[in-house]
């Protein structure tokens, strides 16, 4: 289990990285934390011709604030965001979700943007981005653009990112007053990919529930604050719409059941935060 050969470029600044990416397109891969990419290289599932290491680029490792957005550049490791002072107040959903992300040892290396780029349908970062209606900031040699999370994730490990683009940063909206947040997840073991993950964002007027692990990408639905059978029906509809599949770890039935039950308890928890 050894990687196939590739050239390795230690980018000194972003424009260098973008130049190489522009030249090589899909034959090049960005490496940041490497926690998703390296297993694929070792198994030879991926055989890029060029790896572009962006972790030496100054400035990419600092989390920033732009108004009501927490901006997380490409070099920010998961552990660093988790340790950000005041994160639980700034965006409680992120603070709740991050400890579920892999393990202590992988969070120390893995980056937030890398998780977004990998676009695993069960992963926590894409789920939070979609739940919070966050944005993904893409950059190529030619242009910079910002894509809403809902548009960015387009399928199983497939995103709107073009081959010559990299994720410069992702941005999470900060917590709003009068809004409750909750995150819950069921996995086979601690740290495993979610069978189902739920993130709820709740105001007095609306409920937004995002679900990971069921469809080929995190999916969000919004509905008015329902209760009783109306809520049950709404969650049941959502559960069916996600077109759950059987796989080795769980059945489609369990996944739908978890959307119904975990969805409800996650919404309930978010509503209690509101009260």
């Amino acid at each position: 289990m050894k990687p196939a050969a590739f050239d390795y470029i230690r980018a000194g600044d972003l424009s260098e990285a973008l130049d190489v990416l522009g030249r090589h397109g899909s034959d090049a891969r960005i490496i940041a934390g490497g926690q998703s990419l390296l297993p694929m290289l070792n198994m030879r599932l991926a055989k890029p011709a060029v790896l572009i290491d962006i972790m030496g680029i100054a400035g990419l490792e600092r989390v920033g604030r732009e108004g009501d957005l927490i901006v997380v550049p490409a070099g920010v490791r998961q552990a660093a965001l988790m340790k950000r002072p005041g994160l639980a107040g700034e965006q409680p959903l992120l603070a709740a979700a991050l400890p579920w992300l892999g393990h202590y040892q992988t969070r120390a290396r893995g980056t937030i943007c890398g998780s977004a780029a990998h676009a695993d349908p069960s992963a926590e970062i894409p789920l939070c981005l979609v739940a919070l209606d966050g944005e993904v900031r893409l950059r190529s040699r030619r242009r910079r653009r910002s894509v809403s999370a809902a548009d960015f994730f387009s399928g199983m490990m497939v995103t709107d990112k073009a081959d010559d683009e990299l994720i410069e940063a992702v941005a999470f909206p900060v917590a709003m007053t009068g809004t409750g947040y909750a995150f819950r997840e069921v996995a086979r073991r601690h740290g495993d990919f979610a069978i189902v993950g739920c993130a709820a964002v709740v105001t007095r007027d609306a409920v937004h529930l995002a679900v990971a692990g069921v469809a080929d990408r995190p999916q969000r639905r919004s509905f008015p604050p329902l209760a009783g059978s109306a809520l049950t029906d709404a969650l049941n509809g959502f559960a069916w719409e996600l077109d759950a599949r059987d796989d080795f770890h769980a059945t489609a039935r369990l996944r739908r059941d978890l959307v119904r039950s975990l969805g409800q308890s996650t919404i309930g928890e978010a509503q209690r935060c509101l009260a």
Partner: protein
Amino acid sequence: MPRLNAATRHRVAFTLNGKPVSLEAEPRLLATDALRHGLGATGTHVGCEHGVCGACTIQIDGQPARACLTLAVQLEGAAVTTVEGLAPERDRLSVMQAAFRRHHALQCGFCTAGILVSLDAYLREQPAPSEQELREVLSGHLCRCTGYTPIIRAALEAAACLRGEPLSQPSDREPAHV
């Protein structure tokens, strides 16, 4: 901008357990192979090469990292710590290592290096961990011999010892939820 060609070997220099080292590495050479076969630091073990088992955990600039998910070229300029660097002297054990021996927290010892390296990093961050916190840190490591309980006991005892506290009795501990 340094571009390291796939087909040739490139000099990579870093510090290993406080000492400067260097080796010649192709870009694709994994840090596990570089440490073990390039530099002879065979204490770091290879159990899965896909980042799950944790046997190869090392510290890069004080933070834990899976060496199997790290390229040797990524170690350039870093301060790397492996299990060989944990004891204060060659013929002594660290507080944690001694606690592992007292508690029979290892059997085959293959996973142990990674666990010790993780705990060393974690206790610097959190010197007074709960059992539950330790279990979560350890969940990034697979041990097939011990059932984990003696590892938890050793780690709690070593943490207390490092804080300068007297050794606690097992009955003082709150059981963790698993």
